[in-house]
């Protein structure tokens, strides 16, 4: 294996964004397979960061910082990957904070932690209209859509999204997981969601279960 791939992983552990981006560009421009850069470099580094988080050696802000660097690097790798006809990361998770809610911290944490489990995370942002979520599900065909809301006043929007997915005939094609401070297991069942997680690490376990790919190392 190219030792620069090991160096790329180290750059992620060190949260050295410019270093990681430069190495990724150098690898791709130098003709190293984008699949290898993605799987053995970026994805493996995120998995390792997840393992370190589990061991208590790494904190959430560090996971989020690593995930941001991962995204910058992945933006370089993905065009090359698609051009080469290679496989992107396995399951896609679509993340959104529902309409009327500007609280996206929890959703960002979940997105970052999901990357440590090898998910391809697409973040629609905050205050996202139900129609925009449905449209994105139609276009990207994610395995899971994650809906976040922090307020008791915006929580009903989660039900609205599920109903809109049903109306669009997409409900059977995607798993829906919900979260946020006012959300409970009961609420998730009541609105017909596929699962609920109380925090980011639990969301990772839930997503792995929903995607049918429990990873023994997580």
């Amino acid at each position, binding site marked *: 294996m190219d030792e620069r791939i090991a160096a790329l992983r180290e750059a992620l552990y060190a949260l050295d964004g410019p270093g990681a981006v430069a190495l990724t560009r150098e690898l791709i421009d130098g003709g190293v397979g984008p699949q290898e850069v993605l799987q053995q470099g970026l994805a493996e580094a995120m998995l390792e960061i997840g393992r370190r988080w589990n061991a208590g050696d790494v904190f959430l802000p560090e996971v*989020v*910082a690593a995930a941001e660097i991962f995204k910058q690097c992945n933006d370089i790798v993905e065009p090359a990957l698609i051009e080469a006809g290679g496989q992107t990361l396995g399951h896609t998770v679509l993340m959104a904070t529902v309409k009327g809610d*500007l609280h996206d*911290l929890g959703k960002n*944490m979940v997105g970052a932690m999901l990357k440590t489990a090898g998910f391809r995370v697409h973040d629609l942002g905050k205050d996202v209209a139900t129609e925009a979520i449905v449209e994105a599900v139609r276009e990207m065909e994610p395995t899971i859509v994650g809906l976040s809301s922090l307020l008791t006043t915006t929580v009903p929007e989660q039900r609205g999204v599920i109903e809109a997915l049903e109306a669009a005939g997409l409900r059977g094609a995607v798993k829906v997981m919900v979260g946020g401070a006012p959300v409970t297991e009961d609420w998730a069942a009541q609105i017909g969601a596929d699962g609920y997680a109380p925090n980011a690490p639990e969301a990772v376990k839930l997503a792995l279960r929903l995607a049918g790919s429990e990873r023994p190392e997580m």
Partner: protein
Amino acid sequence: MTVRHTADVARTATEPTRCVDGLPLRHLDVLPEATLERIHAATLRVLDRTGIEVRSDAMIRRLAAAGAQGDIEAGRVTFPPALVEEALALAPHALLLAGRHPGCDLELDGTHGYLSVDGNAAEILDLATGERRPSTKADLAQISRVADALPQIGFLWQGVAARDTPLASQPLHELQAQYANTTKHVQLMTAALPDQARGAVEIATIVAGGEAELRARPVLSSFQTSLSPLTYDGPPLEAAAIYAEAGVPAGFVAMPISCATAPATRAAALVQSNAEILAGIVALELLVPGAPTFYGACGTVMDLRTGAASCGGPEDLLFQMAGAQLARRYCLPSNIGTFATGAKSPDWQAGVENGLSIVASWLGGADMLCGAGLLYGARVYSIAELLLDAEIFSLVRSMTEGVADADEDLALEVIEAVGPGGHYLAQPHTLRHMREQWQPRFFGRDAWEDWESAGRPQPPDRARERAIAILAEHRPTPLQDGAEDAILGVIETYERHTEGAA
């Protein structure tokens, strides 16, 4: 803030790695200046008029020869105010409590407060069974080993009594168990007889590596307690002088109980407590001028229904703050009874009492805070409670560090860069500083679901688990070659000596 001058302390050339955390002290005077001075004046009057009972004719003669007024027939010693002031002026204002390792040294100069292992319980909560049972030397060794691993613990009292050893040599066995299991300073609370003091000094001399070494770096300190009201037995005063002559700090601690062994009112209880402590210190300075000593206050009230010491309540908190303030009034290092909840398990009562108690001692400016691990009004030791008390200490310590205000701390650029509506999660500033945040070990911050699936553990459960892990992993630095045998030799000699005498 009053910073007392540091004594002539033997410093090492290079700063050793610290293995002990102290509380940066700030003072809040709970007694207004006028009240403080009324208590001082009343104390001088008590020492002059009432005096103290000394239960030894020989000691009364020695004190009278040194300037006090002795009345052998009445068994009384009184101290004229001028003599009290003169004797107090001889006491050093700062102390070094040395560890076996210089990184564990405690400089008691009024700038930092240190937590001890509390003592001297007769029973322990068995770590394996959770049952209360009589304590042993092996228990004391375990407590000492756990304390050695905790940076929050500055020095050690004898957590439990080594009840499976002969009574006369018990303090020596306790010292042996502790020195073999910690590199931190040991403060002996149980050696109140002259022979025991001699044996303890011999053991400390072995640990320090010689008499001069012990004098320069005392790895041992001691204290004697008054018998409230206003009484000292002869042998403890003699023992204090033996320690002091060897350079081992010899403090005095009063443990009066209002409504029983002290008057009911707060002011009078403080006067009596102050008189007892000062009488001990003045007596010691008359016997051994310049003796290193300290001011120990551990006052409480009697529970009006059961007659037991309450150990934890508003009066205790006031006595702690006032005791530390009085010690500052005399420029003496203070040793303030701090934890020792009356609760029978590490529960809500224990948390409230000990949480408030450490803040009171900190605000008072206590140099020594005693101590961690006791339940049931100091009668039962719990290693889980030791860890929980250490966690309370670490929480308060983090608070006492206050708010820094350098440019890096104000972080205006970061606030500007993130702007309204952003987040600070992945900011380099966050990554640089997040580990300064206090991290709990036993507070439950996990999700409800995780907590349920783990079997609803409470903080004491986590603490017990941690204690078992520390005992499995932590190996303290052993004593230097030959020291262990030499210490056992001292114990054997003293045991033969007491048998011969008996």
